[in-house]
């Protein structure tokens, strides 16, 4: 089905398709994630009074912290399945380049987290009566760039954490410090759009730079992580 010259994209596509198919079949994961997203929004609504005037200022931060937690839970899950079935060893032995595997995993995680965000957003809008006072269309690239920033590093660090004790806690321990500039950018960009007070332009540029830098670094170094037995 895939020609020799197109092996990288073939492998990426095939792995991605397999992951998505597996996720779709194991409805448990999806159901629990759905419920988790709802819970997160509700808990946040109790903790941070949605009726206060300040909500509009902090909503950007709230939303992204919620997304961050959802992403960490999702990321922890996706590699665990690979480990259970010793798929990782199969990948290492196969001639497929490590990059394709990484890209497939990252894209799969991206789709997974994006779905969660799409589910949580209407709830947030409802509970916090959110309305964008600035150019609302900019929220889409912000969401996409922000999610990718979390997912690309998250996938890398999740793979790194595979061979550590306390695997689940290791991922956020590694991910959060590195993600701080991206988080700052996501939150401030979103707040800028919601309040309409400032321009999100600089933040979008920063996010894009962050994404480019770290996507390249992840692709370059993933082989090392995969081969670390």
């Amino acid at each position: 089905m895939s020609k020799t010259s197109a092996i990288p994209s073939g492998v990426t596509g095939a792995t991605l398709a397999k992951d998505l198919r597996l996720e779709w079949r194991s409805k448990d994961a999806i159901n629990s994630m759905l419920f988790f997203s709802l819970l997160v929004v509700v808990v946040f609504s109790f903790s941070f009074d949605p009726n206060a005037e300040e909500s509009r200022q902090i909503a950007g931060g709230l939303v992204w912290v919620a997304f961050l937690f959802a992403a960490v839970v999702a990321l922890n899950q996706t590699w665990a399945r690979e480990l259970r079935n010793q798929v990782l060893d199969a990948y290492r032995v196969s001639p497929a380049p490590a990059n394709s595997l990484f890209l497939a995993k990252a894209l799969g995680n991206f789709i997974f987290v994006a779905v969660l965000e799409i589910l949580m957003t209407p709830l947030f809008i409802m509970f916090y009566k959110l309305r964008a006072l600035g150019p609302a269309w900019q929220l889409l690239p912000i969401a996409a760039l922000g999610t990718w920033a979390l997912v690309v590093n998250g996938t890398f660090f999740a793979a790194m954490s595979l061979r550590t004790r306390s695997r689940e806690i290791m991922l956020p321990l590694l991910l959060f410090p590195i993600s701080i500039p991206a988080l700052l950018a996501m939150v401030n960009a979103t707040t800028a759009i919601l309040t309409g007070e400032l321009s999100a332009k600089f933040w979008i540029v920063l996010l894009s730079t962050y994404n480019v830098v770290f996507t390249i670094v992840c692709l370059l170094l993933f082989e090392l992580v995969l081969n670390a037995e």
Partner: protein
Amino acid sequence: MTMRRLFPIFGLLTAVLLSYALYEALVAAPTEQTMGNVQRIFYYHVPSAWTAFLLFFINFVCSIQYLVRSNPVADKVTNWTVIAIAIAACVAAFVIHPLPQGMEPSSVATTGLAIAGLYFLIKKYFSRERVDALAVVSAEVGVVFCTVVLVTGPLWARPVWGIWWTWDVRLTSTLVLWLIYISYLMLRRFSTSGQTPVLAAALAVFGALDVPLVYFSIWIFRTQHPQPVIGGGGSIDPRMLQVLLINWLAFLCFAGLVCWSRYRLEILRRELEETQALEALLEPRSPQ
């Protein structure tokens, strides 16, 4: 061994230097006009910061070396890149007019040359395996010094500016650097892989790339939400500069001592582990 004898001599010298520097900082240095005596915290805060950054930079160099020295091509490319950076720094120092505020041409050129010098010195005197040991050492001691910075900073800020903390560029970048290296040390401690050094080195590279981004992101944030500047720049009284440099020298020597001790400990620990592993292989006796 001369090393054994050098250590106590160096230790004594450092102790003398530290005492002298302490005296200078507390007594001899002139009292600052606006801040009063509290400003003297500066003489401990700033040298600790510079030392911490130097140590973290050494860790970065070691991490890069550990990653590239396994591959001859990558190794050569990196060598030439380092040389190129040094040359670029020297050229830029004298070609770029005007330089950003606070930078002198001579210091830019010296920094570039120092970076290259440090890189090749480490390469010459440390084998690949030992470079990893140096990485652990510099990360650990760097975190200790960085902790000092983060503790003395608020203690200085509170009496002078009335607040314990502010999200200004330098403080926040230092905090993030501290967090990144704590996570680095946790990875080292919790990893069960045989390739921990590789993973840790990769993390150090991530961290190094992250720091400029942190700096830049806080800078954008500050231009949008102006806040008080802590430890504002500007010229410094030459007498104070002298005290500052003496304290820095003293702390550098102290850091050197601590690193040396930690390094010896690390080498010993690794030798012990290897011996234990060998023993386990060679003596398949029945357990007691």
